[in-house]
């Protein structure tokens, strides 16, 4: 087990380093001279030169990379050119917001995806299976920014039930928080629910053809007990693993959702940063989401390994 963990960690480190290089290079490709953005349209050439000097834009790229990566290692993500705010604390304030949104969306995807997946597996090949499958595929096929717009139109503009945008922390006003997170969580959770449904269905189908399920059935146990106890409990492992992996995708999906609902999370931060040429903020968010993904995959591996006795004995 420990050997396996170490091996996975050793693989993760170069991946993280390569991510940091890609992230850094990407920023160099962005159009728009950051000195001009900082200086504004009215800046004189002398002012621009001074800005470039101060922010080190004249240094060779490798030097700029070294400065950046060493600062990041020390937890210093730099300062926003535009607002003069530090990016580190900004991220710290935004991560819980995106995490809240992601968890709420995950919750929605689980309560829709898992039951639907189980039902589709039970009714495999029959009419209901197709209904569930097509519904799930529809969930994947709806562009979530469009769904967001439609929900705002219906629930905020026409019916006035939910706020059109914004975010309230659950620690401040749980009820207002629930209202503010409902629409974004549904929008973000829909596609994920569809994915969960498909994974649950195929995991259940695999398990249901196993001997122990047949044995349980042969013993005359009631069907729903067979399905829930024997089949679903065993199908859990791949489902949990996939859910963990999907969490990374969720963070990415938050980009447009946060944009539409004006939620101050890291997704909105990165889009705004791209448009404002905030190199360091884009770098910080991209690096962070890459790292989150790597860690989540690591976690998924560990879960899978830990929950799968066969694999465990083979490696040990």
């Amino acid at each position, binding site marked *: 087990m420990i050997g396996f963990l170490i091996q996975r960690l050793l*693989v993760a480190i*170069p*991946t*993280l380093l*390569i*991510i940091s290089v*890609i*992230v850094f290079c*990407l*920023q160099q*490709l*962005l*159009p728009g001279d950051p000195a001009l953005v900082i200086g504004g349209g009215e800046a004189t050439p002398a002012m621009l030169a001074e800005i470039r000097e101060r922010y080190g834009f004249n240094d060779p790229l490798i030097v700029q990379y070294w400065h950046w990566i060493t600062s990041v290692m020390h937890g210093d993500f730099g300062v926003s050119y535009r607002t003069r705010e530090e990016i580190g604390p900004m991220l710290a304030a935004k991560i819980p917001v995106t995490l809240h949104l992601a968890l709420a969306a995950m919750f929605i995807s689980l309560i829709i995806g898992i039951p639907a997946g189980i039902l589709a597996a039970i009714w495999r090949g029959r009419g209901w299976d*197709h209904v569930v*499958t*097509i519904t799930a*595929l*529809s969930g*994947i*096929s*709806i*562009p979530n*920014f*469009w769904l967001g*717009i*439609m929900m*705002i*139109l219906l629930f905020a*503009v026409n019916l006035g039930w939910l706020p059109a945008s914004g975010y309230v922390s659950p620690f401040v006003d749980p009820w207002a928080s629930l209202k503010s997170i409902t629409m974004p969580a549904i929008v973000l959770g829909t596609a994920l629910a569809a994915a969960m449904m498909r994974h649950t269905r*195929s995991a259940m*189908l695999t398990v249901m053809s196993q001997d122990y399920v047949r044995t349980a059935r042969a013993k005359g146990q009631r069907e729903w007990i067979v399905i829930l106890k024997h089949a679903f409990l065993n199908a859990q492992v791949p489902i949990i693993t996939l859910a963990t992996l999907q969490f*990374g*995708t969720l*963070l*990415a*999906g938050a*980009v*447009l959702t946060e*944009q539409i609902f004006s939620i101050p999370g890291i997704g909105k931060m*990165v*889009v705004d940063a*791209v*448009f404002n040429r905030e190199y360091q903020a*884009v770098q910080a*968010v*991209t690096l962070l*989401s*890459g*790292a989150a*993904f*790597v860690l989540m*995959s690591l976690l998924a591996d560990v879960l899978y390994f830990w929950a799968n006795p066969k694999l465990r004995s083979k490696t040990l």
Partner: protein
Amino acid sequence: MVRRFTRNRAAVFGLAIVALFVVIAIVAPLISPFDPIKTNWGLVRKAPSAAHWFGTDELGRDVLSRVLYGARASLYAGVVSVVIAFAIGVPIGIISGFAGGVLDVVVMRVVDAFLAIPFLILAIALAAFLGPSLTNAMIAIGVSTAPVFARLARGQTLIIKVEEYIEAARSMGVRPSTILTKYIFANALPPLLVQSTLAIATAIIAEAALAFLGLGQQPPDASWGSMLNSARSSLGLAPWMAIYPGIAIFLTVLGFNLLGDGLHDALDPKA
């Protein structure tokens, strides 16, 4: 295999939707009731009517005609970006998997790193770098999707390269380049095609998302995403401007997803 596909009603339905939109894209000039870029100052944001079934937009253009013409941009974007992703990803994956060793380790680490960066963030950053246009959006989406193809192609290569016929070909002195193209690529193709169909669905949504952010099709030409973008500011006034392009995206993407799923099941009866 064909029979297995045709028996799958959902898949056939998907194929029908895709075919319908392909036809629409091709004959858009023939069936559009109006010129999609013809403005009419007197008919701004008019609700759907007998003359304008889907209403008019903020410059008095016919929404139906724009949706029909928009099919061109969206399908084109979906297909071309996947071709780009395929052309970049598959050779990298096959060569890396076939060569093995240090090269494989290094290439796969880089691919993993790319995969770890959220797709949309990568595409937005690339599209912003290249400058907003339909072509650049396609390149950005293609490059961001390529790692998925590299991964899949490598996985298939690892399975295929230990097959006996590859060993046989090698011992007969067949050149590695021939083995790569004739044996490995040919055998890895079916799952790659399934992936391509699903990737087109994703790419169409991605193009719409980039256009929605102003990084795709440029005015006055229509794409579904850019129509949604301009509909956003007058949502309460003219909801039809947002509803119809959204439905068009939804149907097309659903079609490709159904088709991809059907192909997958037809190729792999175990699932």
